[in-house]
């Protein structure tokens, strides 16, 4: 009599097939990778795909990068429907707040925004910046954040910058229900991008590296086959 798990589509061609149709709902997913691998693009497609179905998506940027700059680059992607911005895709800059707020205040602010919008999809991009501001409070903050986000009934993607020689930010990976790794590697003289689902709780996910491309026409697309 076990529940058939509800899933929300990833919005990225080729990903849903790897994870039984989508991310478990509710859940918190870490998307980790070094700069330039497409983490923000990956999350934008997730939000805009939900918006196409009438869902609400909430994007927290932690870098003090105003939404107009995020959209400046995203607007190159032809498949993102800009009419959703401000309606079904809502941008929220918490960069300035991180500099002076306590963990409790940050959590309360995120709680209030998620509750106010009743978002089914949430992105915090990147979560790892918060560590610099919270220090020793970071780990308990993460556990509280993950617990709250799931109780708000959202699929939340937290992006994580990866340090040199680091596979993924371990504190976030431990607290998350899923881990998606984005990497680039040199293969036969060319630098290619790969994604890999390392963890997806409650899901028979496919393992192994999947090659992907990012184009203006289609955005982030995972290619078929495992490499």
């Amino acid at each position: 009599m076990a529940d058939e798990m509800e899933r929300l589509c990833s919005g990225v061609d080729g990903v849903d097939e790897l994870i039984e149709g989508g991310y478990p709902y509710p859940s918190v997913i870490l998307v980790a990778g070094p700069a330039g691998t497409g983490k923000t693009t990956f999350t934008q497609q997730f939000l805009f795909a939900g918006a196409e179905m009438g869902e609400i998506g909430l994007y927290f940027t932690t870098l003090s990068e105003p939404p107009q700059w995020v959209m400046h680059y995203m607007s190159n992607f032809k498949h993102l429907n800009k009419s959703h911005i401000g309606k079904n895709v809502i941008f929220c800059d918490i960069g300035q707040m991180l500099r002076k707020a306590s963990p409790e205040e940050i959590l309360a602010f995120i709680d209030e925004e998620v509750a106010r919008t009743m978002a089914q999809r949430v992105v915090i991009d990147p979560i790892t910046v918060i560590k610099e501001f919270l220090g020793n409070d970071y780990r308990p903050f993460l556990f509280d954040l993950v617990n709250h986000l799931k109780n708000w009934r959202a699929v939340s993607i937290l992006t994580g910058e990866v340090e040199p020689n680091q596979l993924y930010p371990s504190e976030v990976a431990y607290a998350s229900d899923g881990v998606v790794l984005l990497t680039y590697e040199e293969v036969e003289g060319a630098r290619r991008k790969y994604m890999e689902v390392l963890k997806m709780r409650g899901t028979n996910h496919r393992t192994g590296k999947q090659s992907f491309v990012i184009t203006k026409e289609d955005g982030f697309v995972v290619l078929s086959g495992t490499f």
Partner: protein
Amino acid sequence: MNETIDIAKKFMEFFYTANSPQKGKVLVVSKYAERTRVNICLLKFFLHEMKQKGIFITIDRPHQYTASLLTIHGISQENLVYIDAVSRISGETEANVSNVRFINGPYEMNFLDDITAISFAGGAVKTKSIDLDEMNFILIDDIAALTKYQEADGVKKMIHSYIDSIERLNNITAPIVLDANQNRAIYEIIMNRCDRFLFINLSKSIFKEMNRPTHLKRKKVLMPKETSFAKPAATGGY
């Protein structure tokens, strides 16, 4: 929450006839991903629009999340009593709030009976009693979550017990919100015991009364394909 302006009218047409509330068990079919919004719409309608009194039973998450949502959306909880069956197992602090009753969680077979026990209890536990005769509606969030804590037989008993309790109350409207694809067995039990059926899809602005569903269409689930080991192209490309 702007959509609730129209939804309030729809709920009025569905739940009321000639300004009199229609009592009984209503299966409200909606996507699980819209559960929070549908619950808030229902609560807003009963509490805010119709000024009714009711009970909100939480199984899936602590009551504070719903309480916060109602506060943020300006819906008074003065006439709402929470029965919180999950805070004790999720390590939440039991707030000393007059409109919340904490009960032992959904691991226990008879926790829904406990609600009735609380409501009818007198004497020493008088302060915790709930006068069900004063209540106009009861909403449970989320009855399918029982499957996390109980085996199938236990879940069936609890659901029947819950619906039996509702049937003993003549003066109450009891929407049971469920995703048809979430759990087939539970859906069929509840469908067979409900009096009326409502389908809501907020994203697509669909709101319609249904006949008793007879055919259950299964959701297509994408299964992972077998792993293949194609080699990357020799040069560039990707």
